[in-house]
């Protein structure tokens, strides 16, 4: 999966969790928290990403990203280490 595909997947799932962002144009520099996704929403998003990407990894490995771009990098690194 490419970094761009991961970014698109994050945008898709974020819209599912926070329907108010349905027409929002996501950017790599966006913070999920600032977009209105609370901690439960973000936990939901991580699980949806793991399921969509087929990643069975500890959730703690996904902590620390400050924006969507950093989250893309974390997921991308996971695909590299598990493929």
């Amino acid at each position, binding site marked *: 999966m490419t970094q761009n595909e991961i970014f698109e997947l994050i945008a898709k799932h974020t819209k599912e969790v926070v329907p108010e962002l349905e027409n929002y144009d996501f950017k790599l520099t966006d913070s999920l928290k600032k977009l209105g996704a609370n901690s439960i929403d973000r936990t939901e998003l991580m*699980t949806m990403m793991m399921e969509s990407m087929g990643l069975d990894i500890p959730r703690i490995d996904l902590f620390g990203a400050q924006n969507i771009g950093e989250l893309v990098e974390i997921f991308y690194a996971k695909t590299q280490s598990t493929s």
Partner: protein
Amino acid sequence: MQKHNQQVELLITGIGITSNIGQCKDSFTSALLKGDSVFGKVQRLGRQLEGKSFLGAEISDLTYPEDFPKRFLRSASFSSSVALVTLKEAWDEAELDNYEPERIGLIVGGSNFQQRHLQQIHQKHQTQPQFLTPTYGFSFLDTDLAALCTEHFAIKGLAYTVGGASASGQLAIIEAAKALQSGQVDICIALGALMDLSAWELQGFRALGAMGSEKYRDEPQKACRPFDQNRDGFIYGENCGAIVLERGNIRNKIKPYAKLTGWALAMDANRNPNPSHEGELKVIQQTLRQARLSSSDIDYINPHGTGSPLGDETELKALKSAKLNQAYINASKSIIGHGLTSAGTVEVIATLLQMKALKLHPSLNLETPIDNSFNWVKEKTIEHKIKKALTLSMGFGGINTALCLEK
């Protein structure tokens, strides 16, 4: 019995209803008075077992208000979504938007009412539990329904659930009345939660012999027949109701539907589903005493009447022992089915809407009543101005409740 403070009148000032025969008061009342039922084989996903089919009445085309929060839809159970929609109707009618949130409470009647929803989640994640939706960690609790309602309507007084099996809906009303009398809140909503049965509970009820209908499996419209000689158990119905109760001295401009003047709760000291003549008679007598009414004052009874062979017979014996044969009596469940946790609230609503319409709804399939000494409303709607009503609920595990409502 609760000591009733006669100084404080308890008024019902708002109603919300979502049922299998209609959403909102107008369509519900219209279908109820016409006796338009929708019984058939249950279709909702999660209500099928291989080789089995069950009868019931399900809600179709639930309409959400425009301001309904979309993000709730993804994680809310069906019971919770229906509760939010139902509460909205009652909330708006009682004009609660501008009332102090700390003085408003919500009591939800029911426990274990999200069974089908939970079973669907279990099934989906059976092979990959690591991808279970994290909100399951709190949404599996019945209290999530109450929590969603408090968030959406900004309720800050109190909110909790009470479980009393099929008497839960009346139990919620009793707890709301107590919260008003104690002064905890000024306004308290009682909501009978939609019991979302999965195929497992349906099969359990069938195995227990509580649920019909083996006799009428190919004629679903005939299956639900409370108090008729050919009844063979209750038929399930999806329903949810909310009523707004308030102290009579806090607002002047809201015109009430009726006053709640009596309530009673008694246990049979019995874990099993069988009814008790003694327990039922006790709550009838207690609620009449609290309302300071005699049997002859009651002009309408909305009974529990499920279609259970022993339950219906026991209830009529209790009513007869209380000398209540003269009052009009009909069976709401013959039209809307048995909502279990919601039944007590929904049938109070049916009583209030008949009171307002000055009419009594028919009792479907009441061809040969098991006792002809009662004043049955049978196949035809009749004109009647309800002044003083008695409503009853009974639940598995020996719980009996009764309420008095006065115009």
